């Protein structure tokens, strides 16, 4: 039998928390003692509690959110961080989460959505932060200012594939902007 998935909920509302817990009660989740607020030492606690999924209300995360999320990911790299949403949250902010769970979603879908996000897209333990040859090629073109469309034409691949490469490059390097990627390429002697 597969080991249970450890789930940590960080949510101030008792009602919402109880609701989520009830939906997951007979599933293969093991619910860790939930938190009502975002403790300053959350990264350290994660290392202790070892959740596989962190279901968190994004409005609790102190600003700058992306850096906080990076600290959480560093404390527990294998954990999926899922946003629990029931009010308006900046879409840009939600991009930083593995997935978003809206409480208006059908109850029967909730467990499945959470299960899906703990299946790693790639084996995290062996995750390779080196860019592949193809990614390096894409990086060079991005750094030179080419658009995704231009890169797709140059490399004879679809725009969708280019965007996947770009996403992976950002994931591996931690760098998002074109200017930042150009610096990365220069620092790694990929371009002059």
């Amino acid at each position, binding site marked *: 039998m597969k080991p249970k998935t450890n789930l940590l909920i960080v949510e101030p509302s008792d009602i919402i928390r109880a609701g989520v817990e009830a939906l997951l009660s007979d599933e293969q989740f093991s619910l860790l003692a939930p938190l009502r607020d975002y403790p300053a030492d959350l990264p350290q606690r994660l290392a202790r509690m070892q959740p596989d999924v962190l279901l968190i209300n994004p*409005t609790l995360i102190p600003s*700058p959110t992306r850096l906080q999320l990076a600290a959480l990911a560093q404390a527990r790299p294998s954990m999926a961080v899922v946003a629990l949403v029931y009010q308006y949250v900046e879409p840009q902010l939600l991009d930083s989460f593995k997935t978003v769970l809206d409480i208006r979603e059908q109850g029967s879908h909730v467990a499945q959505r959470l299960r899906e996000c703990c299946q790693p897209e790639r084996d995290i333990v062996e995750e390779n932060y080196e860019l592949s040859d193809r990614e390096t090629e894409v990086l060079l073109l991005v750094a030179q200012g080419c658009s995704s469309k231009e890169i797709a034409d140059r490399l004879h691949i679809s725009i969708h594939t280019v965007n996947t490469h770009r996403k992976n490059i950002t994931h591996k390097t931690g760098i*998002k902007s074109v200017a930042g990627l150009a*610096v990365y390429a220069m620092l*790694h002697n990929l371009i002059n």
Partner: protein
Amino acid sequence: MKYQPFTSHIKMADVIAANHSLLLVLPRLGIRLGFGEQSVKEVCDRYQLDVDFVLLIFNVYTFDNYLPDSSTFAATNLQPLVPYLQSSHQYYLNERLPHIKRHLLNVAASAGDRYGAILRQFFADYEKEVEDHFSFEEQHIFPLLKAAGDTDNLPQRRGRQAIPQSSHLAHNHSDLVDRLTDLTSIMLKYVPGDCLTEELNELVFGVMQLSSDLEKHALLEEKLLIPYIRQMLQHPMP
């Protein structure tokens, strides 16, 4: 943070104690320290500031994703927003960027010729981008608010003003913030470890502080300024 927004009768000193980063916001409103026991309302009266507007700024800077509800939004006079945003621009250009630059140049000088040159170039490009973006806003967006408040020549005005899309502005803003986040990543991951630690720390803290300030600044422009301009042009105040 789960929020209970600040209200006008709270003591000003307590507000600042609750969120010390507001210390950096006060000069942009023209408020100086030394409040004694005065409430936010009393301090605002002393400086002839609109207390609802000042509270709006404090709340946006303090609570993640805080936006006024529609009745507060409709009741708040946002004309002071433009002078505030302008003085924020001045603050970023005249104080924060030079502060970051000073430390960046020291880090660059200790990082070897090649790394140093790359960092200096990245920052010079960034400064230029910020200046261009601010001057675009000051020339093309801020005047719209002034025009929107001018009720004299309403018929000619209606429908003719090209109001930039919030989404267009948001795209530029997120690039400005992303570049700062990238600079932090580069500093933490890829710059040689033998650089001046103190300088590097000052640089990273400076960049993070500017980055979170710019996020709030962008929020004010995208979620309040542009919608307010739209509202004013459709329903001008009597």
